């Protein structure tokens, strides 16, 4: 994979602070990294970076995929060792040779991919490997329960210690992971994209917890792609680009625009990007077809175990949003349209024709495409090449007398890679080795040709960096402009405001109301609309 980004570190745009804040005295530093280098083969992941963390601060670490954030975290976690440079913890020089050494020094990393035993309870997971025992070696179950309960209450984590982790929504599984880290007397907590799968209400719970932790002097390194969180939570922010530190700034000195330009660098920052991050909304509304025309998708009174009455219409060429908290039924609506769930009541129509898909095969035949929520689990065969993944949904048109047309597949993937600017060596590259943004583009590539009548998008930009996110928005807008109806689910309300002409609010399995983009003037207003009912009951498996 080539780095498309130039390696030169050009001066940042004018409205940015050029000086770092006065560094804290050495004794106050929990973590101090200087001149750190790490090379993988011919790729320099870290080219001499500096980083520091003070007690009690939330320090946001930003950068595009490949900028070196993950490598730094791996060095801190003891997963990788650095080639050069120093790492000091509490002023003491360290070189971790294993995750255990890092842990012993008081560092804990909560990764995006959680390391839990799904079949065990929250309490059992938190105490995994360090269960209190009786003199005879038996595990003290009641002590585990009571200590977990007290701890969760103290931090205000809305979790039931008896809940089985595998039954919990992703957000609460993550919460368990954070609680586990906090319980082992950490002084430095690293959160790697902790909110990528959380909805807004749950985010606040996490933020509260983080604030409580920092109040006790723990330092938090916060890696995220959601820039809004940086302003809500962090005191300082460090930006990496191409394995170098662009700078460290007090968050109060930064605004969205300066942050974005620091991250993506001197690359041409499209006016749209700037507008987008400022929350100005769609640049041009695509002309909506006259009311009364046959909608691409119509659902009326659709219900099953989870859905209790879904009514909505999406026009061809329209981008419609579905907003709601996790568990509100957003994803289930998409699954119903894609034939993964069978409704018990109600009707679906595609272009006015009754539509009863028995499975994804029928849905795809009717021109429906799905970009699922879980890219790794549902969207891609991670061990297969870009070409094989892109060819997957429409193998038939590429087949002549049972003979698979390699040429046709190659052309299809070549065109998709070019149009979606997928950054990879070639079409044979295994998708598991790509960055999150490029993987997501491959998922979009699966539905590019032939054009879908209806495209269902579930959290289309989770784990995708700022630059790639904009490109994906471009792809979505282009699909709509070519006449595809788009139905998009997102926990990121600013994303919905940015993309959609209309937004339907979903709550408790029902569509509550549909609003026009013009009716809401801010993310807060939309947030209020989404959250006017009581929040989902947390921790208790449904």
């Amino acid at each position, binding site marked *: 994979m080539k780095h498309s980004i130039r390696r030169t570190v050009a001066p940042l745009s004018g409205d940015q602070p050029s000086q770092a804040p006065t560094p804290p005295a050495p004794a106050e530093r929990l973590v101090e990294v200087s001149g750190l280098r790490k090379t*993988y083969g011919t*790729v320099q992941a870290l080219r001499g970076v500096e980083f520091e963390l003070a007690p009690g601060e939330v320090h946001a670490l930003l950068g595009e*995929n490949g*900028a070196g954030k993950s490598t730094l975290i791996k060095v801190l976690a003891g997963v990788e060792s650095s080639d050069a440079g120093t790492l000091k913890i509490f002023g003491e020089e360290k070189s971790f040779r294993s995750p255990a050494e890092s842990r012993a020094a008081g560092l804990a990393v909560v990764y995006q991919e959680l390391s839990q035993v799904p079949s065990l309870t929250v309490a059992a997971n938190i105490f995994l490997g360090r269960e209190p025992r009786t003199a005879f070696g038996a595990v003290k179950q009641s002590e585990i329960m009571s200590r977990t309960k007290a701890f969760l209450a103290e931090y205000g984590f809305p979790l039931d210690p008896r809940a089985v982790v595998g039954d919990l929504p992703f957000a609460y599984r993550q919460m368990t992971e954070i609680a586990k880290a906090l319980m082992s007397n950490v002084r430095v907590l690293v959160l790697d994209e902790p909110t990528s799968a959380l909805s807004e209400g749950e985010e606040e719970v996490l933020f509260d917890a983080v604030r409580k932790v920092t109040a006790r002097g723990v330092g938090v390194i916060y890696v995220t792609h959601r820039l809004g969180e940086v302003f809500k939570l962090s005191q300082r922010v460090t930006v990496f680009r191409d394995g170098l530190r662009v700078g460290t700034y007090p968050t109060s000195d930064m605004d969205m625009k300066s942050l974005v330009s620091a991250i993506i660098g001197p690359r041409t920052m499209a006016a749209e990007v700037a507008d987008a991050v400022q929350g100005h909304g769609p640049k041009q509304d695509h002309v909506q077809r006259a009311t009364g025309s046959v909608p691409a998708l119509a659902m009326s009174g659709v219900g099953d175990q989870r859905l209790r009455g879904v009514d909505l219409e999406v026009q061809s060429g329209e981008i419609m949003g579905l907003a709601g908290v996790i568990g509100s039924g957003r994803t289930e609506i998409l699954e119903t349209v894609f034939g993964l769930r069978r409704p018990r009541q109600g009707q679906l129509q595609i272009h006015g024709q009754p539509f009863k898909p028995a499975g*994804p095969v029928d849905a*795809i035949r009717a021109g429906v495409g799905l970009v699922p929520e879980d890219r790794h689990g549902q969207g891609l065969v991670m061990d297969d090449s870009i070409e094989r993944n892109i060819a*997957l949904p429409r193998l038939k048109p590429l087949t002549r007398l049972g003979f698979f047309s390699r040429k046709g597949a190659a052309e299809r993937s070549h065109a998709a890679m070019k149009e979606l600017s997928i950054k990879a*060596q070639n079409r044979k590259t295994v998708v598991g080795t790509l*960055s999150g943004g490029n993987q997501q583009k491959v998922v979009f590539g699966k539905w590019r040709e032939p054009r879908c009548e209806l495209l269902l998008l579930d959290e289309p930009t989770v784990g995708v960096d700022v630059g790639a996110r904009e490109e994906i928005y471009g792809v979505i807008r282009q699909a709509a402009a070519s006449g595809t109806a788009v139905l998009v689910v997102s926990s990121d309300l600013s994303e919905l405001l940015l993309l959609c002409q209309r937004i339907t609010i979903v709550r408790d399995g029902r569509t509550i109301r549909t609003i026009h983009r013009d009716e809401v003037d801010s993310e807060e207003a939309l947030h209020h609309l989404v959250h006017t009912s009581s929040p989902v009951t947390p921790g208790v498996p449904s």
Partner: protein
Amino acid sequence: MSLTAQSAAKAGGTAPSVKTLKNLVRGDRPYVLYAAFAVLIVAFSFASPVFFSSSNFLNIGRQTALVTIIAVGMTFVIIAGEIDLSVASTLALSGMSAALAIQQSGGNWALGAAAGLATGALVGLVNGLLTTLLAIPSFLVTLGMLGIARGIALMLTGTTPVVVNSLTFWDSFGEGAILGVPAPIVITIVVIALGAYVLHFSTFGRRVFATGGNATAARYSGINTRRTKTLAFVITGALAGLAGLILTARAHAARPDIAAGLELDVIAAVILGGTSLFGGRGAILGTVLGSLMIGVLNNGLTLMGVSSQAQLVVKGAIIIAAVAFSRRK
């Protein structure tokens, strides 16, 4: 994130022409297997003067034909993320039904061949349907079928072998030869070619890889993963039936207790050939090499005068070593 992107860069690229060739032999890391294979042949050639001769190679080919044929089918099943433990029993049952059909029809060898293949395919169909429709792990379904098929084979005649009296049948599947190449080897080559074509060049092959690589993603892409898996079982069953015909023709009779334990050699050949036991990756050519390697080991050790007991130990150790070396990190 960034690490994986960089390791991709590290992996680098190869010329497209080489890649096409590599697709045929793709597996986890089969190069180690090729090297081990070459070393074995050289070592046995020095150790035994009889080893390196065309007659001995034909001998090896004949001995490995059964395992190779079934292993081609097993490659489909394992890449699709399943396993079939019932192949040896299926072979025996198919042989019996072929022999009985020939006997009952008064020597109609074609009817017998059809009955043998159909029996194998039917057992495969049952395996596939039970696995996919009832969602029982194929390990358990086929473990049960291992007993059921063997039991039925034994019950058909009350454990007595069935003699086959058809010269055409003997020649077609056992003793005949084309240009000096024995019929079983010709059949094996045809099966390998067809198997490689279907797995690596057909749309069905793509479905098999996707189903085993990530069944959910395959389903979300509109692939009928149940049908794909069931078909893989049917292919394996039919090929076990074909192997049953060969064994019956060679012995001029079908024995219900034949080939017990053969499934382990078949699975060993597939895994040795670099196909992942977890599904999603593998290659026919790797399987063929894996099967040949087991055959070369058996043959070479026998020629060197190693006792059959010691052969078991050596074979087992070499299989573990070969797989250990070819593991991806």
